[in-house]
């Protein structure tokens, strides 16, 4: 079973190798003429003011939290979905309850105005 | 419920948008495949400036009156001139048009009374070296060789000028006699080079109207696609 993951590994090394080789070939071909201005960051023709690495509000903090919650929940749903056939109505009701809680959480967040990006 | 309605109308409108672009997918492209095909340039088009010469004698029509130089808003025209001691006429010794600062506005052509300078439909003049864009008299004359033009401006003045000097140039037979030329012989300028511009202007107007009328009676020869979609046919014609 696990041997299939060997293929995955081959693909992984293969692609990374391919990209690195391509980049190396390009390095052989291309010119390199760095200059003071060229190594500056591009900012529409002006010299940039300050670094971009400042602490700023990305404003999807709460979305990220929601994402974590929901993504974990979906992981729970996967096994349920795979064996749904054997679970029958019991599975359906169970999952309805589970999803209802999730949906309630979503609605709660919605009502709280969290889903509004400001 | 409003939300559901919004949802469906939103989807509907998105799909309708797809149809608009999809409709164009089947249409024929309107693109001009440039090096292979070209538009036929309209007669009035204002491309590169050339100097016209008389189709008979091959001499430049320019009489070095400097009007174009004075009319030029950008100072792109520079003329040096000398007087022919025999004919007592000015002729240009240097006629430079600096295409790097020319604005292609057509004022020189309008100011000219002798059909000497014209803006043409030519447009392919890119160069590798900037100095090649400053055209001297030879280049300008060369460019003007194949330019067909209807002498619409001031044949009167020209004729008059020619008749003024009977011994030198008057021998050549004038085939354009049917023009309005000799109608007002009293108005012919005695000294073209120093003539105030206004006088000519008035006359130009008079003769202008005449020639324009003539033009309008002619079958439409400056054929040019009327709308973009129709250019298709033109394109094919010119492609042949």
């Amino acid at each position, binding site marked *: 079973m696990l041997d299939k993951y060997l293929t995955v590994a081959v693909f992984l090394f293969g692609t990374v190798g391919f990209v690195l080789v391509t980049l190396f070939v390009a390095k052989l071909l291309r010119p390199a003429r760095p200059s003071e201005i060229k190594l500056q960051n591009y900012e529409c023709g002006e010299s940039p003011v300050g670094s971009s690495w400042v602490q700023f509000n990305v404003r999807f903090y709460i979305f990220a939290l929601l994402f974590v919650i929901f993504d974990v929940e979906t992981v729970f749903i996967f096994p349920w979905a795979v064996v749904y056939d054997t679970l029958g109505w019991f599975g359906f009701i169970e999952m309805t309850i589970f999803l209802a809680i999730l949906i309630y959480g979503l609605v709660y967040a919605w009502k709280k105005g969290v889903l509004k990006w400001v | 419920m409003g939300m559901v309605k919004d949802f469906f109308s939103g989807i509907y409108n998105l799909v309708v948008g797809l149809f608009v672009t999809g409709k164009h997918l089947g249409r024929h492209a309107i693109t001009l495949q440039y090096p292979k095909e070209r538009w036929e340039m309209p007669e009035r088009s204002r491309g590169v400036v050339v100097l016209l010469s008389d189709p008979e004698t091959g001499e430049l029509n320019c009489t070095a009156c400097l009007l174009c130089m004075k009319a030029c808003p950008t*100072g792109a025209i520079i003329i040096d001139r000398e007087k022919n001691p025999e004919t007592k006429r000015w002729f240009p010794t240097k006629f430079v048009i600096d295409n790097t600062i020319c604005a292609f506005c057509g004022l020189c052509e309008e100011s000219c009374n002798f059909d000497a300078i014209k803006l043409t439909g030519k447009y392919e003049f890119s160069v590798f070296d900037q100095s090649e864009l400053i055209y001297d008299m030879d280049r300008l004359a060369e460019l003007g060789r194949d330019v067909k033009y209807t002498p619409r401006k001031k044949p009167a003045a020209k004729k008059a000028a020619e008749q003024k000097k009977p011994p030198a140039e008057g021998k050549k037979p004038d085939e354009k006699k049917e023009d309005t030329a000799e109608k007002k012989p009293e108005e012919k300028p005695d000294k073209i080079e120093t003539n105030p511009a206004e006088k000519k202007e008035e006359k130009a107007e008079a003769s202008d109207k005449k020639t324009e009328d003539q033009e309008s009676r002619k079958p439409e020869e400056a054929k040019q696609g009327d709308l973009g979609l129709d250019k298709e046919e033109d394109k094919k014609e010119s492609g042949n």
Partner: protein
Amino acid sequence: MQNEQLVSQLVEKFGAQAEKVELNPAQPALVVDKSILVEFLKQIKEDENFKIDYLSCISAVDYLENGMEMNYHLCSIELRYKLTVKVKLDREKPEVPTIREIHPGADWHEREAWELFGIDIKGHPNLKTLLLPEDWKDGWPMRRDWEGNDDFVKMPEF
């Protein structure tokens, strides 16, 4: 003619302070003193009879020995009046109060007048170069007696 009525009313109202100049029947102009300019503009903006609330343009003119002039081209959106308010300035030390408080749109126009003509806008908080390069040092280029700088090529007279 609407405009003429307007001007006569204005002159009537402001009396000695405003002087009427007839430029063109369609375009009346008033000369006001720079000391009352702000107050004047404010009043004609707020007054129900005039409502001159729209500033089209400000143009400075350099008359050399006759001093300088600021022209405020105003109009009323509602009543369709058109009015030019002129302010005469001393050429040696041209200064004029800012009218940003009344017409925020005057901001850049005033900066431009300062930059190109050297007219000092009193009370303008942001007098820095607008159109010219940041390192411009060659004086006030739009003045009539501006000599030109290294790069300036005068068109030869033909």
